[in-house]
Structures are given as structure tokens and as C-alpha cells.
């Protein structure tokens, strides 16, 4: 196989993973920026726009922000650089249900086929879920596993990442197509909170609750289905430990699962945030052993 001639496996992802900059540099991961359209401007996530600024702008913007995937050129540049280094490329991205990143990656892959091996993987998640998959891929690659094995394992791990969310941001839910316009109107009438879940790659809103307390309970009940040793992440556009919604969620989890040691905070990233809105809150669970 070709990989005998290759010099290793390199990982490409996007800014939704919210990985620390020095870690990214140390492991040679390429992170392409999501574009955030807000207040008439087009900003690059993680470059022109940090998490706190996005949250601040979103809270005050008159229109919900939307995201666009990294450009085809950016993908091609990244793939060509790695092709020149004779690497096999695993390109893992934010859930295709959130925006077109996976699609653009596929287009770039088609352009470059024959010059190097590129596998584009829809993580079917975002934020800390995507981050955990990237870290696992890097670890396996650094352990010298063959490309096909790494791809297969990461794909398997992706099946064990779960996400459940609450959002009362009807404009965001409606704009992102998660609620029919009529339901969004209903949300305004009844102060409805949508309960959203990643299911088979799609982020759907199968249920509604009337109070945040009920919502936290539902998220905690969802969490209680997992081993306490799983990774638990409270997800918000820019989560702060003292934010009432973050505390409400963590308290509900602690009450139901006192043995959970840690609920980490994870910024949702713009792509997931453009569905949940600045007020949305949720939980991502990685039901596999992550390395510290």
C-alpha cells in the first residue's frame, strides 16, 4: 500500500473543535477557520473573532449570526501542503448537519485525489466532541497505527459521542431550520424551550419543555445513562462557570450523578452556536476513555 511510502498521518479539522493553539502547533494539526457572518461583517473564527467577542456580539446583534464553512481554497491549500509532505490526511469536521464544511472538504478531496490519500470524516458532533475525536486521531497516528485503522477507530469513536441541548432562542432555531416557523411563533407564545439532540448525524428538536429546570432535568437524565467516567462537557457559546444556566445544568447533573468527577466547560463554536443561539446550553458526552 501507498502508506509504506508515506511519512505519516496528518489531521485537518476546523475551528469548531476549539483546540488550544499550542497543542495544535505541537501536534501539527491544521485548523481551518469557520466564517461567522454577524452584523454585516464576515469574520474568521479563532483568527478575527474569539469566543468571548462572538458571544458579546451575538447578544447585541439584531439578527442571528450564521456560519459559512472554510473556503475551498483554504482546504486545497491545506491538503496540498500535506500532500507535498507525503502525508495521509484525515480531515475531521463539524457535523454536516450544522453547515457545509464536510461538503467543501469533499470537493477539495476530489481535486487532490491521486496525489495523496484524503479521508473526510463527518464527526456528527461539534465543540468538545469534535475536539476529543481529533485528539484521539492524533494519539493513534503518533502511536504509528496504519491510516485505515486510525480512520476506522475514529469513526467508531464518533458513534460514541452524544449531544443534547436546550435553547429558547427562537430566532436562531427558526433561522437554522430546527423549528418550523409556526413552532417558533409558539415558542414566543408559550416561552417554549426546545430540547435538541444529535441523532444519526442530524440535530433535531423532538421535544419541548416549558422551564429551564425541566430542561436541566432532562439533560441530567440523559447523562445518567452513561458511565460516570465518560467525558461530560457543558456547552455554551462562551461558557462561564458562574453563568446561571451553566450552574443549573451542572447542579442537575451532580444531583443525579454525584459520582461524576468533572463537568468541563466547552465553547460550542460558531457552527453549533448558530443553532442554539447565545443563550443555548447543552451537554456533550464522550462515552470513551480520553487521554488526559
Amino acid at each position, binding site marked *: 500500500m501507498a502508506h509504506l511510502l508515506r511519512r505519516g498521518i496528518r489531521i485537518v479539522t476546523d475551528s469548531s473543535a476549539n483546540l488550544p493553539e499550542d497543542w495544535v502547533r505541537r501536534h501539527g494539526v491544521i485548523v481551518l477557520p469557520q466564517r461567522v457572518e454577524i452584523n454585516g461583517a464576515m469574520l474568521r473564527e479563532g483568527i478575527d473573532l474569539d469566543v468571548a467577542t462572538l458571544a458579546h456580539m451575538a447578544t447585541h446583534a439584531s439578527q442571528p449570526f450564521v456560519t459559512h464553512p472554510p473556503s475551498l481554497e483554504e482546504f486545497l491549500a491545506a491538503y496540498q501542503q500535506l500532500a507535498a509532505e507525503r502525508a495521509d490526511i484525515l480531515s475531521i469536521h463539524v457535523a454536516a448537519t450544522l453547515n457545509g464544511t464536510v461538503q467543501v472538504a469533499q470537493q477539495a478531496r476530489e481535486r487532490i485525489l491521486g496525489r495523496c490519500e484524503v479521508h473526510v470524516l463527518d464527526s456528527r458532533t461539534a465543540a468538545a466532541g469534535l475536539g476529543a475525536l481529533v485528539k484521539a486521531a492524533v494519539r493513534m497516528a503518533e502511536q504509528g497505527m496504519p491510516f485505515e485503522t486510525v480512520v476506522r477507530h475514529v469513526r467508531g469513536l464518533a458513534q460514541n459521542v452524544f449531544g443534547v441541548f436546550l435553547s429558547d432562542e427562537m430566532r436562531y432555531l427558526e433561522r437554522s431550520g430546527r423549528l418550523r416557523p409556526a413552532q417558533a411563533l409558539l415558542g414566543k407564545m408559550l416561552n417554549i424551550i426546545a430540547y435538541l439532540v444529535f441523532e444519526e448525524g442530524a440535530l433535531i428538536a423532538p421535544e419541548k419543555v*416549558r422551564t429551564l*429546570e425541566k430542561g436541566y432535568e432532562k439533560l441530567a437524565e440523559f447523562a445518567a445513562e452513561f458511565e460516570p467516567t465518560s467525558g461530560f462537557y457543558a456547552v455554551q457559546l462562551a461558557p462561564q462557570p458562574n453563568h446561571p444556566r451553566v450552574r443549573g445544568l451542572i447542579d442537575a447533573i451532580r444531583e443525579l450523578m454525584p459520582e461524576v468527577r468533572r463537568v468541563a466547560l466547552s465553547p460550542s463554536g460558531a457552527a453549533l452556536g448558530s443553532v442554539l443561539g447565545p443563550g443555548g446550553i447543552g451537554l456533550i458526552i464522550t462515552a470513551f476513555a480520553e487521554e488526559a
Partner: protein
Amino acid sequence: MSTQTERTSVSPETSAHSEARTAQRLALDGRRLKELVRAAYLWLRQQEAVVNSYNVYPVPDGDTGTNMMHTMRSAWEAIATLDEPNIGAVAKAASNGALRGSRGNSGIILSQLWRGFARSLDGKDICDAQDLAAAFQEAARTAYSGVSTPVEGTILTVARELAEAVAVAAHRTHDLRKLLEVAKDAAYDAVQRTPQMLKILKDAGVVDSGGYGLYVILEGVWRSVNGLPVETPEASVETSGLNREAESALQREGGWGYDVQYLIYARPGKPLDVDQIRADIEAMGECPLVMGDAEVVKVHVHVPDPGVPISYGARWGSLRDVVVEDMQAQSEAFVPAGLAKPVQPPPEPELPPAAVAMVAVASGAGLTRLFRELGARVVVEGGQTMNPSVEDFLGAIRRARADAVIVLPNNGNIIMTAEQAARMSEVSVHVLPTKTIPQGVAAALAFNAALPVEALLEAMRAPIAQVTTVEITKATRTVTLNGVNAQEGQYIGLVDDALRTAGDDIVEVTLAALHSAGAAHAELITLYHGNGLEAAAVEAIAERVRAAFPRAQVDLVAGDQPHYYFIIGVE
């Protein structure tokens, strides 16, 4: 009253010598039954307001007389054009009509009485004394078996006791006219004793309204048999022993002017705004009913000047099936033929088929919209003021076009009607016994068409018990119940349908009812505000509720429901 029998001649086909002839024939045929049904219906219509006045709760709903009248009207309409000598066939047709048109719990029980009555007469050309006694008994038996927990002191007791009395009398006489009088008198006696059998009637100072309605039906029959009029208001003095303050309500009837009905068909490119039309029609007159969609809207309203709603409708689109009736003239000279042709409901566009659908009952533009947005495929207009009929439900279930239909009646007096429709429907219908709007909203929130039906029913049923319902309205009469004294016209607060508070200040009454409903420990209080309150007053009351129950999230929703200033969900 029994002295009447001696001197009054019997109906058109009999004469002064009728006593002997009737005694010889001892029979009742299909044509004669048809006449009696018409008389019973007309008399009940005449007495509708009186029957309505025997409502245990002093609230403007649960109108037993109206429900029974509609049920009898439907029985009559089913036979109005029949010319059939076979009594079994006429009884069966009337029974089917009663069943389809039955509304409310009393209407359902009345339709069950009809079912047993017709079954007993099935295949018979004529009915003699023994047949009549058997038919009354079968009627009572069928009605009892149709109720899961029969309660004595209700229409059931009246039906049973009159059947027993007729059975005993049938040993002594074969005179049907006498037996019908026995039936009427036994019904009257049983009605009089209902307060002894059912404490809540005694507390409220009323007789059982359904039982009284059945008495009125038999009285109408008896009047017809004895040649007494059944269509003039003066005749109501006959029942003055039971009438009391309802007399005044009766006087009001007929003062409404014109009954106007029509369909508006949208002009191309000019869709109809149902909510706008409803709001405008509601402002025009009494008993407004506006249903439909962007293409066809049905309008029904009582107004002093029929020209107003008609020219209004013509501005929206082209009018069809316009019916204008002078209600004054109608009550003076009733034309049965006109009643046999109700306006056809507007043809609704067909929905795409679905695996599972939700059908909900609501009244008021806001509540109707709310249930639609909660995912109800069809919202049946009705509730406190107008209970939908079995046929209304069957139509809604058909329009929902689903393999399984989940029905939310949202009113205790509508559950039996929905269940009856469920038994008659060709598709699988599940009635969730929601007794109030907040219960219905809680259940509807859990609606998810992607779930398998059994799981969905489970998910929707669970939240019903979590909600306590508070309703704020005005007392329609003075009453003392549960130790609460309410003067007519005062605000009253009901908690899960029981009277809890009364007073002159709507804020105090609302807060007291909420306390009684356990709002101090609630997480969520939803105020559905109805017609009849200014926006500023609604806001002010909501603020007081927020201040009184700081732990709860307080949501304010425009329900636009009639009669109830507030319907409140506490959970």
C-alpha cells in the same frame, strides 16, 4: 296533570272517539313516532334554557339543555324526511341521528337511551304497551352499560325509574297514552328526588339537569299525544314548579334578530385571513362561529341586521350557501323543513396522509392557534360554550387523515363524546382524558409524530397529572358550594373544576385560587387570558401573580377564550 288526559283529544289522526279507538289499536307506528320525536325536540328546544339553568356550578358552561337539544335535533333531522310506517326503522334512524349529533355527557347518555330503545323495537312494525315497556327498559339498561361508573341521582336514575314505572303500569293498562303519562310523571318524581341521591345537587340547590332534560323530552311527547302545543313560549308555565330564575333566560331567546350563515370562497390571489374575519365577526353579534382556512371560511353569527355580516363577507370573497333566518319568526312559527337542511361545512383541503395525528378541542382564536402550533392537525371548535358532537369529532378525525388519531377533549364534558366517536371511527382513535386546556397543552407539548403510538400515548399521558387547573369566571347565579358563597355576578375561582373562591376583586380571587392550587410551590404558572379583559388589566394581574409567586416562572398567553377571564395552568 293527569286530569288532562281525560278531556284532551289526541293528535290529528284521532278524534273525540279516540279513547275507544286507541284502546283497540294499542299501537304506535313509525309515522306516529316521528311526530313524537319532533314534539319532544321542539319542546326541549323551548325548555333549553331551563335545563341549562340546573348547572351545579354557577359557571357559563356545561350546558346540558343545549347539548341534549342538539342531540334530539339530530335525531329529528335523521327522520324528518322519512315516510316510514315501520316503527323499528324510524327508531333506528332516529337513534343513529342522536348518536352522530350527540354532544356532551348528557347528550351521549341520551343517545345511548335511543340506542337501547331502537334496539328493542328493531324489526317491529308497530309498538304496543308491552313493546313500549320493554323499549324503555332496554333504553335504561343500554345507558347504564355505556357509563363506566354509573352515578345515581342523574339521568340514568330517571331513565331507570320511569322504565320501571311503565313496566308496572303495562300490567294494568294497554293504553299507550296512559303509559306515556306514567313515564312523564315517573320521570318528574325521579327528577325531584335527585338532590336526595346526589349531595352536590342538594348543596347547589338544583335538580339534575340531564334527568330534567329527559323529563322535558317525555313531557314533549305527552303534550303531543294530548294535543297541547309544543312550540310557544307560554306553554313553559307548565314547568313553573321547576323554572325559577331561568324564566328570565328564556325571555331573552328570540331577541337576537337574524341568524346569518354563509361560506366565503377566496378570490384568486387573495387568501382569506381567518383570524381577522373571526375577530371582525365576533365584534358584530352573538354566537359567532368562524371556521376555515385561506381558501374557504364558514361564518355563522346572530345579528340584529343581516346586511352587515353579508356585505362584510362579500368584501373578502365570493359568498355561497347564504342562509338568513329570522329567529323571532322562527321561534313563533317553526318550520321543520328548514332544520333538516343544515349548512354544509366548508370543504377543507385534504391533508397528506400521516401515521399519527393529534386532534384537539379549543375555543378562542388564541387557544386554537396554540394547539395548531403544538402540532394538532385539526382543532375542533368548541369547549365551554359549545360542546362538539360525535359527528364533529368523526369529521375532524377523518380530516386528520392518519392511521392513528390522538384526541385531546380538554373538557370533562366532552370526553364521552370523543370516546363515542373513537368507537365509531374506522381508524384507530385514542382519547386522552384531558379535562382542561392546561392539561391539553401539557399533553400536546409531548406530541412527537416520530414516536410509535404506544410510546407517544405514554409520553403524552404522563404530564396530564402534573398540572393543576385554575379557572376564573363570573358566577351565573348565587350559590354556596364547598363552603364558598358566591353571589351572582361575583368573580369565582375554580380549582380543577371545584369552586374554591369568590369575591368582587378579580385579583384577590385569582390569587386566592392560585394559593389553593398550590402555586406557592409551583415551577410554572401559565395564564391564558380570555375575552373580556383589557390588555392593561391582564398585565397588572400578571404582575401581581409574579409578585405573589416569585419562585414560579409566570407565562402570559392570549387564549381569547370566551367567558373565562383566566384559565391557568399550575405545574
